[in-house]
């Protein structure tokens, strides 16, 4: 059963990681300033970005993509957010 974006945001980081691992589809990733590995996932009909802190060896953030233009930062074809 799918969660809405609002429901997804009610969970803490640990749970969000679990949800992304369980229900998310990995799309692509980018490196940000050699410090962070940012991955784009599609989950329940919206996108989320996970932020992996390379120096700390752990994921420090999982946040829904608010502005779809962020997707353009990735080296990949344009995505249909509802598709």
């Amino acid at each position, binding site marked *: *059963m799918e969660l809405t974006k609002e429901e997804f945001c009610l969970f803490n980081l*640990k749970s969000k990681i679990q949800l992304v691992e369980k229900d998310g589809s990995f799309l692509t990733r980018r490196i940000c300033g050699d410090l962070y590995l940012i991955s784009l996932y599609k989950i329940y009909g919206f996108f989320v970005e996970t932020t992996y802190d390379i120096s700390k060896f752990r994921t420090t953030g999982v946040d829904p993509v608010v502005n779809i233009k962020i997707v353009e930062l990735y080296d990949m074809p344009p995505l249909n957010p509802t598709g």
Partner: protein
Amino acid sequence: MSHKNIIETVNEIANHARLNCIAHLHTEDTKLEENIITVNGKPTVHFGSCSYLGLEFNTKIKEAAKNAIDNYGTQFSSSRAYLSPIYYKSLEEKLEKIFDAPTIVAPTTTLGHIAAIPVLVSAEDVVILDHQVHNSVQTATGLVKSKGTRVELLRHNRIDLLEKRIIELRNKYEKIWYMADGIYSMYGDTTPIDEIHKLLDKYPEFHFYVDDAHAMSCFGKNGRGFVLSEHSIHKRMVVATSLNKAFASGGGALIFHDRKTAQLVKNVGGPLITSGPMQPAALGAANATADIHLSDEITIMQEDLQENIKYADMMLKKHGLPNLSNSFSPIFFIAVSLPKVAYSIINKMKKDGFFLNIGIFPAVPIKNTGVRFTITRLHTFKQIDEMIQAMAKNFKSTLIEENVNLDTIYKAFKIKSPLIRETDNKVDSFIKQSKLTIEHYRTIHHVDPIIWNSILGQNGAFDWNALTVLEESFSNNEAKFENWGFDYLIIKDDNQKPILGTFLTSSISKDDLLANKDVSREIENKRFDNPYFMSSKTLLVGSQLTEGNHLYIDRDSSFIKEALEILFAKISKIQIRENISTTMIRDMDATDSVIDSVMMDNGFFKMSVPDNYKVENVNWKSETEFYKNLTKNSKRHYRKFITKHEHKYDLNIIEKPSIEELNHFYELYLNIQQKSLTISTFTLPFKLFKNMALNENWEVLSLNLRKEYDDRLNNKPVAMAFCYKGNNDYSAVIAGIDYEFNSTDFSYRQLLAKVIFRGRALSKKNIALGYTSGIEKKHFGATEIKSCAYTQIKDNFKMEALAIMTTDKKTTNGTNERRVLSI
């Protein structure tokens, strides 16, 4: 139920559950891998564990248990009254830090109750047990009961009733003990702790004993539990808790406000001085668990558990499963009502790889059986998601197989469906934004008679007194159509002045209530086989029996529109609660454009209704004067049907009719009811006639033919009217006649005349003569009261079907007596 019967019943249920392979089972694993257990050869995810934090696999705790065995052996067998192993001292010190209050450790929570309750409670006290309090508390209470303490049972979580009992008992007993659970082990709901603290502060005789076993570790600072999470321990409160649920070691604990009471229980409490102590392994484990509770680790674990609970709660809601538990509780209870449904679901779940529990008698009432499961920190979202998906699938299929529906379940548990809850929330938030005060009652007995009569008691037969008769008559009856629901609404402005008032009844009514007579006749033929054919649950402003303006509106108020909006919001709540198909606001002024606009805006369509008739502003002094006021045509009518025949009749005004008289009056009523289809209604219950007869505001006008004009030996009345003596109005509400005498002796017309003169004799301003027979009534000076109704229909199929039937009748007969809708 006798004790012997209870034992037999419980034994039977347990055996049945055992044979259904859902109770008294064993794991088959030689080593557990977290929450996977093998039962009946099938590996399943364990959704029945009370080790909510999954600490049983914690390395530090396991090591501590092993070390304690290495150091002290498998047991230290000595009464604690003489000597306790070192682990007890450190554990009690740690627990005192956790609870921030004096604490003693007991071998188990049950033995803790058995130790504490007989010491705390005397024969001069009274114990009030919550209906759902854990069995172990009830067992311990049995000990004090046998020594003369009064023990009562309170409906689950009914703090209003509790306060009432405190007030009643406070001068009769030294202490009033209320015993409850913090989190209930079956429904997973909680004791209303804030309200209990208010009672503790308010009543010095009130004491609270609470078993918080299922909340230990999961809630509060240092995992001190639910009841102590927001409040410190009250000076008249004792908390018992468990160390072998989420605490994952063994034993129980008793927490007191003061050291003196703690020491008293420790000195005198039977099992604490005579029963064996906890084993070193459990004590070692408990010490390590307490250390975790005193560290930051516990907060993270609590948060992990809450995340799992939140996810499970969200999934249950999305699947529409009727979960009774609080949203933060690790115990979930899916209501299913009948045991066979629960057995089936649990077995299907086991086949799907999930081990769940049954919640059944004696833990819950037999018809409130449910599927109980727990969520722990060890569960993954994937396990929870898959289990709830399987539950939704199995719940749905089992309901179909067992012919049970969700409505039956909601009713069995007296719970609101998700739709009702959602509507309630919307309406409540809408109402909260208003400055107006809304009073909503389900019985007239809760309404202030002075206020009610000042706004709606002046006219018609629906003052406070009349409504008590209606409520009594249309409740607890066998036939569905004889039972009505009542709702009373009074909306007040910020000066507490009523600006709107009304009452609504929900009942089953015939869809052809106002349809063409021929249509009704055709439908009635079909009702021989199915009495509820073409009938619907209807919400009426007013009732099927009363007439007149049932909606009081203060026309001088500037809040009319807002008050009406609140009325509509409340109506929408009632519509969902009662599963209403048709809503009708009747007897409204058809020319009121303000009301018309508000009604249309809120989805109500205007509808024509039969006119009702009233002799208004009665100011004539005698029959002669009355006659003088009639038109020429009516005078001729009066001479022909009244004057010429009135000598044949005796009028009896009966205030307290006998049962034989009532039986006959009921037969006369049935004569009219079965013949007249202009307004198609269900038959009124005889109980109504009995209740009217008992009420001083009702009287019966009974017409007998004088013996010289009556061939019958029994000389029974040939016409009657039940009339209500209201403040301004005299209302003929129910009439009955013997048609045999109507055509020759004009008994119906004679009855109308007698009603009018009786109303005048009682100095009433108006005489209400009801619907239909307009021509006759006009001959007696009655005026037709033009009104309309506003209606809202959930499913317009029936309405359209009736309209088609009406059109058919018009085509075949060339007449159409009444349009179904004016639009």
